[in-house]
């Protein structure tokens, strides 16, 4: 049996085709290595994208030809924003940045996070169907976050004075001695002199008791009538506490109904009653940790939008 060899049946035509192919390949390799073909590739890429956009296969990123919409996760520094937000991972993936030709820049996409935007230089949050100005600002975002994780809710509220309670006021009839509790802090004054300032209920009430009782004359306290009241956070009209005659005996169940704050029993009752009032006043502040996390999120979003939209 004769041995068969595989052979190419070369003709001039085939040879020329082969040579041309090699030349084309050499030119392409040279073009790629010297980056000389980059403009051509870019142009072809642009044309290809245009065809895809024309055929609605690819999105040009513009919504209604007015807003450029992009997932925050793919934007530069987007991962930093998402990493810091108080939000679950699935929701983070939904967040989009809308950059519009009418100068409005908005963060949308996550129902849990809510919608925020910069509109004519004003930072706004969407509440229901309405946009409202978002005024809360944070001086130092890092300290705020540390405090949020470190402090108790009450301590946090006091430090940031974000939502003050109504005031609990104790006063002498002539208001020369006054003790005011607000948002966890007491200020006790003798005329204009502060005799106590701090958060200890015991110390504040005891120092007030000293102001309204004394000195002892012939073995008895020279006591003053004491009144109490609850005023709005910004109300400074302490005279009305004394004038409406809400005597302290109404609060402490005074033994002699004398309107004085002069016995140990009065003080025990006062402290007990005040702790209930304090609890209810603090409850009136609706902010909880999640609200503060929202404030923190809003601050991060505000800075992110500023960094992306000029």
């Amino acid at each position, binding site marked *: 049996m004769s041995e068969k060899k595989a052979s190419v049946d070369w003709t001039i035509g085939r040879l020329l*085709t082969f040579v041309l192919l090699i030349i084309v390949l050499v030119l392409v390799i040279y073009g790629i290595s010297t980056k000389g073909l980059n403009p051509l590739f870019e142009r072809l890429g642009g044309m290809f994208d245009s065809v895809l956009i024309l055929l609605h296969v690819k999105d040009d990123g513009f919504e209604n030809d007015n*807003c450029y919409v992009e997932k925050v996760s793919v934007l530069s520094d987007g991962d930093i924003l998402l990493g810091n937000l108080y939000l679950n991972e699935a929701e983070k993936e939904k967040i989009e940045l809308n950059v519009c030709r009418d100068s409005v820049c908005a963060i949308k996409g996550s129902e849990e996070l809510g919608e925020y935007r910069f509109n004519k230089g004003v930072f706004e949050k969407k509440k229901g169907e309405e946009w409202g100005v978002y005024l809360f600002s944070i001086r130092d975002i890092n300290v705020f976050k540390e405090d949020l994780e470190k402090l108790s809710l009450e301590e946090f509220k006091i430090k940031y004075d974000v939502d003050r309670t109504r005031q609990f006021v104790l006063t002498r009839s002539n208001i020369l001695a006054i003790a005011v509790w607000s948002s966890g802090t007491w200020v006790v004054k003798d005329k204009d002199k502060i005799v106590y300032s701090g958060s200890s209920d015991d110390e504040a009430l005891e120092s007030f008791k000293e102001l309204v009782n004394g000195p002892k004359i012939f073995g008895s306290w020279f006591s003053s009538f004491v009144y109490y009241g609850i005023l709005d956070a910004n109300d400074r009209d302490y005279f009305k506490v004394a004038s409406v005659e809400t005597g302290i005996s109404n609060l402490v169940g005074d033994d002699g109904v004398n309107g004085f704050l002069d016995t140990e029993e009065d003080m025990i009752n006062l402290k007990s009653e005040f702790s209930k009032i304090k609890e209810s006043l603090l409850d009136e502040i609706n902010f909880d940790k999640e609200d503060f996390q929202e404030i923190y999120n809003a601050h991060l979003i505000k800075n992110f939008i500023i960094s992306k*939209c000029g």
Partner: protein
Amino acid sequence: MKSKKGELTTNELLEIILVVAGIVLLAVFFYSLVSPMWDKGDETSKAYLESLMSQIETADDGGVGEFFIWPIESNEGDPVGYYLVYFGDKLSISFAEERSFVSGGDNKNYVCICSSSEEVEICNACKDLKFPVILSGESYIGKGEKIAITKMEDYYEFKRV
């Protein structure tokens, strides 16, 4: 010629490659022919961008580049004006009340030639620069404005002249 096993011969393979290349070329030419490719606003923007890039090359070589937006009066339907807009890593630059240039992409050291009509601003000719730009005042340069481009250590200075 087919091999006995039904496999492609070298000859057939070459023909297929050439045919595919021809089809791709034809498709590109056909698209160029039928698509509304030529747009005066786009082409002018691209020309401005090419001019800017050549001036930046001059700056890269140690010289001082110059760039100028011509104060051309527009015809009806043409863009009202052209602007050199430096986005940097922003996605939009405020232009007028309730009007912004939008880059339409997340980039770095991004510069665009944008056209502005009575209704809208469009930025179609854009490029990422090697270095950031320092441009005092507004982040855009408009009709009749001229800038000198200088390459500093790690940035370009665009100075209005």
